[in-house]
């Protein structure tokens, strides 16, 4: 307790990290438990609060707990551009993927290959996100409008060109086009060591049955 604390002392560092990583404000009782008790908590909180005073982030008391919050005076500048992340519906995802792979595609064609008619909100959501736009009209009776993806679509998905969308063979190789249950589930909830060798793992089963098409070495 008599040790001299500063912003780079171990307990203060830990306190800072705990408050940073926590989704909720953390009560002093909880903090004390995590810091193993041997710390002058009020003093550590004080050091932390002073270090952040006047900065872009502040240490604040929220109810009975402590938390970091961005400085209120900056809020206006930050919140002026506030956005939320929205989910895209299943139909939206499918529609987007079909437009991406089959563009330019008319609404009629889209409905025909999906086998359902397009509900109003589906295309709107994609339009609003700026991921699709109308393309050229088709030179067929009725001159229907086609739909194509935009540069913003490429940007969002870090693709340099449409050409870099994985083809069917790639999808299949990646396991995304396979009816068969996967033999190898490469990721699963961790229980022990991350590199713990795993008997269920697909690639190491005896290679008797051809798993996937193999391209010769190129």
């Amino acid at each position, binding site marked *: 307790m008599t040790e001299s604390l500063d912003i780079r002392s171990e307990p203060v560092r830990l306190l800072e*990290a705990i408050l*940073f*990583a*926590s*989704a*909720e404000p953390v009560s002093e009782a909880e903090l004390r438990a995590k810091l193993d008790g041997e710390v002058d908590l009020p003093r550590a909180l004080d050091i932390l609060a002073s270090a952040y005073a006047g900065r872009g982030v502040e240490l604040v008391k929220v109810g009975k707990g402590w*938390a*970091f*919050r*961005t400085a209120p005076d900056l809020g206006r500048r*930050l*919140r002026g*551009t*506030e*956005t*939320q*992340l*929205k*989910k*895209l519906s*299943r139909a939206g*995802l*499918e529609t*987007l*993927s*079909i437009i*991406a*792979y089959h563009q330019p595609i008319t609404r009629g064609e889209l409905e025909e*290959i*999906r*086998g359902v008619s397009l509900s109003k909100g589906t295309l709107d*959501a994609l339009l*609003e*996100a*700026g*991921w699709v736009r109308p393309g050229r009209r088709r030179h067929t009776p009725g001159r229907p409008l086609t739909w194509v993806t935009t540069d913003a679509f490429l940007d*969002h*998905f*870090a*693709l340099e060109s449409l050409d870099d969308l*994985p083809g*069917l063979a790639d*999808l299949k190789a*990646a396991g*995304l*086009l396979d*009816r068969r249950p996967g033999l190898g589930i490469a990721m699963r909830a961790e229980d022990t060591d*991350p*590199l713990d*060798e*795993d*008997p269920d793992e697909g*690639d*190491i*089963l*005896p*290679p*008797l049955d051809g798993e996937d098409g193999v391209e010769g070495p190129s």
Partner: protein
Amino acid sequence: MSKGPALETPFEEDNPDRIPQVHIGAQLVLDLDGFEGPIDVLLSLARDQKVDIAKISILELAEQYLVFVREAQRLNLELAADYLVMAAWLAFMKSRLLLPEPESDDQPTGAELAARLQFQLQRLDAMREAGKKLIDRPRLGRDVFVRGAPEEFRAETTAVLDVKLFDVLKAYGEFKLRSEKEPLKIFATRLYSVEAALERLRPLIGETVEWTQLESFLPQGLGDPVLTRSAIAAHFTASLELVRDGIAEISQSGQYQPLLIRKKPR
């Protein structure tokens, strides 16, 4: 579990009793189920020879592998084709290494082939080591943590859709699977063929001097009504053929009356 010198058993959880094992020489044991393929086997054999793969004897390695394959075959263990392809390749390399180089040959020399194999093993080994180092790094969510209570005011435009490329590709994969047309399957129909009826009827008619109802020649116990009706039709057609061939006579006294049939008298 039987460990050869430095040959690790890859998966401890596996039941040792059920793993096909191949003994190479006196002390080496390979558990077939533990390997990902011939390269993996070679890498294990190589690591057993020496820690530094750059200094192993490729010839000795090839010999060990060939012993491994022969042993597996002797024990009737089923080896995938690629293990045998590798064996053929190694045998070829061995012959190239041991025999004098033929003159003016476009083929790679034995030394070149050996160097390729060595490189392949070194590279894969290096990648495995790199993977271990990578996984031991501080990892997000285990050693390093992000802000637990992010305050959302990112990006400048309006709504941002929370969609990853994986989601799009997965959606397309699922769509493709769903829309993939099931191949049309035509099931073999169980019908009584005219050929079968002819074969049945010919010897029976040969002994039938009296007029006899055609129905009495039908096989019994067919069960399935469709099969029974097809048998009637087939036997009728067959009887007409026998008449045409001059073997039988057929008669019917009127509409819907029973069909009578007998051997054509000589």
